[in-house]
């Protein structure tokens, strides 16, 4: 199997995720897109572990999975809070930082 297979697949997922982050308006959808990005990174890590015949990559993938779980938890809690305060989770209405 070519080494590039996994990496290219990961690149595709990554770019789709990036597109999602840019294009989506719903905060939950943005979080889902971030999950796509994180998974593509994990795929890369596992692929590198396979290529180097070393499980370190898998260990890092596990760490990323754990961090991702924490990130989703906190992220959704924030979304919930925003929803409770503003009755909307549309990101383009959140523009207090407008200069």
């Amino acid at each position, binding site marked *: 199997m070519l080494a*590039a297979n996994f990496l290219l*697949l990961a*690149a595709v997922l990554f770019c789709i995720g*990036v597109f999602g982050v840019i294009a989506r308006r*719903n905060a939950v959808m943005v*979080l889902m897109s971030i999950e796509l990005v994180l998974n593509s990174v994990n795929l890369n890590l596992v692929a590198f572990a396979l290529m180097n015949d070393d499980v370190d990559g898998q260990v890092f993938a596990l760490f990323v*999975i754990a961090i991702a779980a924490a*990130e989703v*938890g906190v992220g*959704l809690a924030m979304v919930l809070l925003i929803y409770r305060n503003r009755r909307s989770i549309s990101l383009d209405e959140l523009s207090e930082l407008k200069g």
Partner: protein
Amino acid sequence: MNAVLLAADGVNVAQNIGFGIIAAGMIFAALCVVSTKNVVHAALWLVVVLGGVAAQYVLAAAEFVAVSQVMVYIGAVMVLFLFGIMLTRAKIGEESGLNNKGWAIGIPVAVVLFGLLAWAVLDTYGDDTIAEPQLTGANNESTVDIADRVLSPYLAPFFGMTFVLLAAAIGAIVLARKD
């Protein structure tokens, strides 16, 4: 894209075909995630992508990571997402205006990024083949290895991770509770 690479390879056809099929499904599902107009459908398509990732892990002889992926993502994260969708009262059904006004700018960005990544990957690993992944079912060495790594050289990050998870759990409770 993948078909071309598959043809060029031919070391293990079955495995490559499996990879190709799963990869195609994943890409389709990922595109659906970012394009569907229904939030719940997006979450369900995401399940497909994540399951596909788990399958790819199995192909890459990372059974333990695959199992963790299934348990953490499909088991826990997806439930969180579905609850998040429900609690924010998203319409169960089609919804207009899920995208930004300027969503189109994402397309060029994504395409440029992909071109760049693909070029980098092919330039570096274009011709490399990887050793046959040993899909050992019974004698699962890699899991033992992972345990040894996590509990010896990566013990400190592992502990750090536990604190991050604890902090995240507490933080999520503090953020989301009504008081």
